[in-house]
């Protein structure tokens, strides 16, 4: 353990380390540094995209913006800053899991995460894991999962970052990050507050985005303490308190308002042994919303869920090349709300992950999970993955899995309509990936197929209200390409990075494309850096999406394709060993393009953001 600290340093400051980790000692470190070991160690056959710290900082405000400009994931956003739900490989919003330090944080009420209620401040990395992950991450990891990770840096340091930004629509953003360690204790804290009138102009009309203001504050605080050279105790916490007006549509004003409160706390104890390391996690998650149909009154509806998690896992080195990770977990959910009484749910899960590396070129993973949930029966889930390094430049990856999504509290208990006889949605998927690497160029190609049965859909009933049923069957298939190329010419650095996805997602009864899934989505990022100056340009193309199940084009049936571009420049005004000041300017929607992401809900016109960042 003597070299522990230097390894931490290595982990934290090497940007390519994630792809390279293979040696045993570093794997042990994973167990201490990462709360989510299975993401690194038991996913060799999966495509994992890492969005680095610097990228997160560049994109600023919301997780929606970061992902729509830097990944293949498509977002359906009800106007800027409003409810935002992802479609990952053509799946619906409740089929993408969001994982916070290894724990699934999708809402128990809606089954999904609103990506505009996740503050990206103080996450060291955001990882995108493509492909089914229910064995590892539970309900909802059907298309893929998004991982928000906090790392604790145990090398001796004490630094601060203050960021102030001001932008169009009276948008104010203040954040403060601080990180400290004395080699035994490590802690970091991030505070952020953002406030925006968000009253952007609807291009080509004389209207503005009325009733779209939002503000939110968040705290991320993480603490790690090395008890002995075999034991580490860690505490993670995240709070998010947000208030949003819900803007109307082009034709209808709105007076609605929505308040979110999310609290997440996790205590983790790791014990590191010679052949086995164990980890005990205890977590409490709370989600709480209030919806005001009319913000001028005090009448609201609400929903609240407390989730309690106990999770115990061991990482066992059975042989040098055979690793085993059993996990047992117990979750207890208790909800209360205006429309569904006070339901609760018990969930017990047992999982076994197996990783086998017969030689340097081949890696196999095989994983099983069985849940026992009160109220309905869950299927036995499995997944397997294979990675084969054909050569230094070429790697093949294959994974397949059976995944599921459990009915939400809304599906089961909503009054009226809630249906206690629902089954979990189940899904099979297979994903073949190729990674081609040549010097500083990377190309990742994936092809996937997903078939989902027993999809839960709300439909009107003869009783006059809507009720969910396990009725639909869908299949999704498509291809993704991700490429990255850096080039250095003397003191000039160039980077080009791009993503393209072709996605077919169809209802098997009608063979029609599902609503709000574009066939084509692409983005390109260009960056240039020279000495203290850096510039970047982002381009996003989203193809036409249908808004009704009939697949007709036109203003009532589809949303037009759009292209939107951003430009940013940053300059280091001051740079010393201990201090750094960056000034940056970002222009969003550079060409003032009128576009909608959801029908009749225009997105912002050209807007500016000015930021000053001081590190010391």
């Amino acid at each position, binding site marked *: 353990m003597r070299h522990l600290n230097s390894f931490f340093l290595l982990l934290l400051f090497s940007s390519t380390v994630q792809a390279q980790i293979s040696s045993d000692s570093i794997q042990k470190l994973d167990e201490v540094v990462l709360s989510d070991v299975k993401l690194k160690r038991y996913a060799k056959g999966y495509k994992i995209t890492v969005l680095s710290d610097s990228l997160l900082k560049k994109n600023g405000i919301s997780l929606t913006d970061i992902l729509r400009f830097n990944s293949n994931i498509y977002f359906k956003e009800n106007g800027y800053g409003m409810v935002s739900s992802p479609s990952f490989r053509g799946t619906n919003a409740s089929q993408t899991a969001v994982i916070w330090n290894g724990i699934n944080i999708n809402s128990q009420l809606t089954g999904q995460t609103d990506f505009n209620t996740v503050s990206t401040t103080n996450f060291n990395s955001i990882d995108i894991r493509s492909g089914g992950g229910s064995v590892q991450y539970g309900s909802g990891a059907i298309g893929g999962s998004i991982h928000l990770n906090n790392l604790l840096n145990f090398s001796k340091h004490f630094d601060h970052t203050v960021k102030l930004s001001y932008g169009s629509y009276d948008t104010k953003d203040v954040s403060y990050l601080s990180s400290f360690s004395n080699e035994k204790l490590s802690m970091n804290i991030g505070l952020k507050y953002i406030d925006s009138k968000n009253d952007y102009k609807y291009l080509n009309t004389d209207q503005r985005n009325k009733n779209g203001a939002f503000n939110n504050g968040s705290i991320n605080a993480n603490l790690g303490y090395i008890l002995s050279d075999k034991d580490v105790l860690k505490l993670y916490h995240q709070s998010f308190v947000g208030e949003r007006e819900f803007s109307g549509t082009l034709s209808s004003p709105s007076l609605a308002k929505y308040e979110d409160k999310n609290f997440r706390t996790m205590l983790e104890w790791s014990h590191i042994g010679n052949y086995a390391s164990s980890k005990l996690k205890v977590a409490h998650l709370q989600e709480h919303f209030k919806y005001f149909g009319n913000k001028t009154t005090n009448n609201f509806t609400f929903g609240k869920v407390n989730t309690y998690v106990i999770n115990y896992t061991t990482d066992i080195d059975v042989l040098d090349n055979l690793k085993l990770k059993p996990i047992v977990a117990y979750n207890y959910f208790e909800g209360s709300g205006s429309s569904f009484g006070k339901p609760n749910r018990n969930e017990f899960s047992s999982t076994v992950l197996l990783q086998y590396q017969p030689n340097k070129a081949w890696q196999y993973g095989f994983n099983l999970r069985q849940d026992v949930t009160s109220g309905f029966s869950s299927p036995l889930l499995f997944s397997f993955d294979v990675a084969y390094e054909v050569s230094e430049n070429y790697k093949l990856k294959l994974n397949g899995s059976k995944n599921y999504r459990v009915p939400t509290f809304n599906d089961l208990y909503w*009054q009226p309509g809630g249906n206690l006889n629902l089954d979990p949605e189940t899904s099979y998927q297979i994903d073949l990936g190729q990674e081609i690497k040549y010097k500083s160029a990377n190309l990742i190609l994936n092809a996937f197929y997903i078939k989902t049965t027993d999809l839960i859909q709300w439909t009107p009933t*003869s009783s006059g209200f809507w009720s969910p049923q396990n009725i639909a069957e869908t299949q999704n298939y498509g291809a993704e390409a991700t490429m990255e190329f850096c080039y250095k010419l003397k003191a000039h650095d160039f980077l080009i990075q791009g993503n393209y996805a072709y996605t077919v997602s169809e209802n098997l009864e009608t063979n029609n494309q599902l609503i709000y899934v574009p066939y084509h989505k692409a983005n390109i990022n260009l960056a240039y850096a020279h000495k203290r100056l850096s510039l970047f340009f982002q381009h996003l193309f989203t193809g036409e999406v249908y808004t009704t199940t009939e697949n007709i084009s036109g203003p009532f049936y589809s949303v037009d394709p759009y292209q939107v571009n951003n430009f940013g420049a940053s300059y280091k005004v001051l740079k010393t060993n201990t201090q750094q000041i960056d000034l940056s300017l970002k222009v969003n929607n550079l060409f003032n393009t009128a576009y909608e992401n959801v029908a*009749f809900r225009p997105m912002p016109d050209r807007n500016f953001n000015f930021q000053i960042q001081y590190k010391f």
Partner: protein
Amino acid sequence: MKKIILSIFAMSLFIVSCSSDDDATPSEPLGAYEDGIIVSGEGGPSSISFISNDLMTTENEIYFNVNNEATGVYLQSIGFNDDKAYIVVDAGTITVVNRYTFEKLGTISTGLTLPRFIAFDGNTAYVSDWADPNDTTDDYIAVVDLSTNSVTSTIPVSEGPEQVLEESGKIYVSHKGGYGVNNVISVINISNNLLETITVNDVPDEMFIDESGNLLVLSSGANQSWLTPPVETAASITRIDLSDNSIISNLEFATGEHPGLMTYDDGIAYYILNNKVYTLEDNATSLPTSPLFDITTGYAYGLSVRDNQLFVTDGNFTANSTLLIYDISTGTETNSFSVAIGASKIYFNE
């Protein structure tokens, strides 16, 4: 020269004959959407469909096509008065259009919160409004001056006012109950705004004046299976004598039967129950035991009758709905049309 004079003479003859006898020659069409069936769809997005009376011309999204804007979330109902139509949208607006061209003439929004239906008395309109749907005590009828398109006063009423109907100087309001359950008909005397109530079965909705001038009300009955214990009350068709608001007859349905759609024409009420069409004549003393004919819908969501034809919308909320036309005498489906998403109301624009 002679020819010109002759033709001018002929022209003047034509003009004279035109103005002297309107009935003898076809009148100029008042707009593209005259003489047809108007179907309103709740959405979303909400829209309005048109089908000409000869069933030869159909057009969806007519309001959007004319005005290049959508009707809003959600389109609840349309009222017709003189040459205007009033499009009532839940989000708190009524859009005033020319009923024949569907060109937008104005909007009424100040003073409206969650409007449902509109009725007319001369130059005044009465609009039922739930206000805040979570507040059971703030519901009202908005009184609208149609010359200025503004709400001039409000009349507080009990929870969940739904359909409104004007008859002989009084406004009748069925209180479906909004998000809850109510069981009254409000009667507003237009001359002095005095309010009376008539108690009927739970969830009164559709209202018609029968051939004898009585008020016919369909109440769906409560069916709150999700409550513990579940609450279920009987649906009924109630006939009310408007001279003294007394109940002439109250025909109750069996347990488990909760019809939601009724229409009325020429002495006969038509209602739908579990994809079957039943009829009730004015002098009936009991509910019919056998249906007139069966229909095939996934979700019957709108009902109207004209002449010998029954119009039913099969509501679809994720794609276009279907308007089905049935021949009443044979019970056969004669036509079907793709109409607005969430098609809920069928009107005849004569």
